[in-house]
């Protein structure tokens, strides 16, 4: 399953780091962050609850880039 979330982040490199962090979160199959449109598309693994996974994604993103936001 794929879902798209609006995000807020200031620099392109930070967006790359968010993408990396999201990809490495458990339950996430793949993630793409589009800095130009400020959107994050997350593909979840089968049987995972997106809401729970996204909480983890947000936590991991905050770790690598303090100044980011994902609008869940």
């Amino acid at each position, binding site marked *: 399953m794929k879902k798209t979330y609006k995000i807020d982040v*200031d*620099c*392109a*490199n930070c967006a*790359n*780091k968010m993408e990396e962090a999201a990809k490495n979160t458990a339950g996430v199959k793949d993630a*793409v962050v*589009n*800095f*130009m*449109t*400020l*959107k994050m*598309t997350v593909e979840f693994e089968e049987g995972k609850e997106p809401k729970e996974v996204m909480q983890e994604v947000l936590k991991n993103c905050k*770790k*690598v*880039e*303090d*100044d980011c936001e994902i609008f869940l």
Partner: protein
Amino acid sequence: MNKKQKKVFVRIIITAVLMIVFSQLPIEGWLRLALFLIPYLVIGYDILKKAFKGILNRQVFDENFLMAVATIGAIVLGSYTEGVAVMLFYQIGELFQSYAVGKSRRNISELMDIRPDYANIERDGKLEKVDPDEVEIGTIIVVQPGEKVPIDGIVAEGSTTLNTSALTGESLPREVTVGDEVVSGCINMTGVLKIETTKEFGESTVSKILDLVENSSSKKSKSENFISKFARYYTPAVCYGALALAVLPPVVRMLILGLTPEWGDWIYRALTFLVISCPCALVISIPLSFFAGIGGASREGVLVKGSNYLETLAQTKYVVFDKTGTMTQGVFEVSGVHHNKMEEEKLLEYAALAESASSHPISKSLQRAYGKAIDRSRVTDVEEISGNGVTAKVDGVPVAAGNAKLMERLGIDYQECHHVGTIVHMAVNGEYAGHILISDILKPNAKAAIQSLKHAGITKTVMLTGDAKNVAEQVAKELDISEVYSELLPADKVTKVEELLQQKGEKEKLAFVGDGINDAPVLSRADIGIAMGALGSDAAIEAADVVLMDDDPLKIAKAIKISRKCLRIVYENIYFAIGIKVLCLILGALGIANMWLAIFADVGVMVLAVLNAIRALFVKKL
């Protein structure tokens, strides 16, 4: 500027003023340090905070950390002005970047501002504005002059001229009347329209296009992936380099060469290293170039589904076309009347009237060529002979219109035609009256399109068609296409494209151009599939990688030129940014470059790269 940017702007002004004033004051020692800490903290508190948090989260090597270390280092070394200045220029750079990115983001979205905000529904004689998302299929919506058509549908009442330029990039107006299909995103120019919707808002053309363009930059190109990989190694590498530069040379000088270590000098050099090390110029300008390129292209009616496709398109050397609907109009028109004894118009009149009962495309084109209203009452005794043609009486005169078999059947001598196309032989009053040639005509820009492709460096143009050999070869000759394969079934087209794929070199890419109706397999098999005339055709938008909204073949070359320009800018930025940084790193290591040059290498390069990237948006004149 938004609120966040304004705040930074104010901080920049305050810091700049304080820095200039303090650097002129004749104060020395601790007081001077205390004074300079004021602007330093004003401009840098958030960077310091982020750097600290980064360390806590074990994300040491980010640019906040680099800036914090470099500036604190400079201040410790006593270069107060430089310490503040580095932070100041870093913030100016960040502000500019966020402003430029925000601006181009808005610019591009404005270009694509075809999203309708509402739909009008008539209730109890009054118009009511509703959210287009809530309109169900089959609802009658009202579109007034000046408004956008919000949802795809069929005209139920009224007629008007539509401006499709937001979708196609062409300002050629389109006339519609009752029964015609209209696609969302067009602007109604003259009359009031009532439209019966045939799709939901989310499935309508305008929503699909917006979705496509907005998501297009998510499919990342090789260059983008290269840059993010590069950035991942580059920053740590430079940091370790800086550390080595700060420690090794003084140690070597002290222990081996027996000289004074000059710690201050080497640490200063290491700090300039850190300032140069931020990869932002690259990381921001490459996706921005692609985004601008895709935005510029969509303004011209060329939708590119991803940065990776833009990259492939730029490497295209082989272009393979479908014939019908791509190079030709796919509608049949009368292209000549031969061996006629009576006047051409009279003969066409007879033909059109005799065939008036038929809905065959041939009879439609005869009626179009005749150009006047058909008075059916003039036609009697119509007899359709399947596979042969029609006999009828027009104004009481017996007329036969059909192929050679019909003439043989009626025992009338006829003349063969040596032109290519469908021939309608005519007999009036039992005597041969000439024949009418009907053929698929070339698109007006077809020839120019092939030429401009050759001009753009396409090495091979190939045409594939299911049509007869003589037709195909005539078209190919007329258009100056180098290779042609005819009488192909849809499956044969795939095989042919596969053969061509084998022939070409590794770095050369093959593009297939079709009208998207029955060539979906070929579109997906080619390196890049281009569908044209896609306005209103969902299948084409789904199957292709690049979609030309109108059916002008000149846009193929244009799309290739846009992609080349975009890729040229991408490479310019990669070489330019990496080149300057490496040069400054070397100069910094040798002690020639000071902190000011390092600031240029960081902020200056980024500003220039962003400005260069925005150039990709301007593709009108290509």
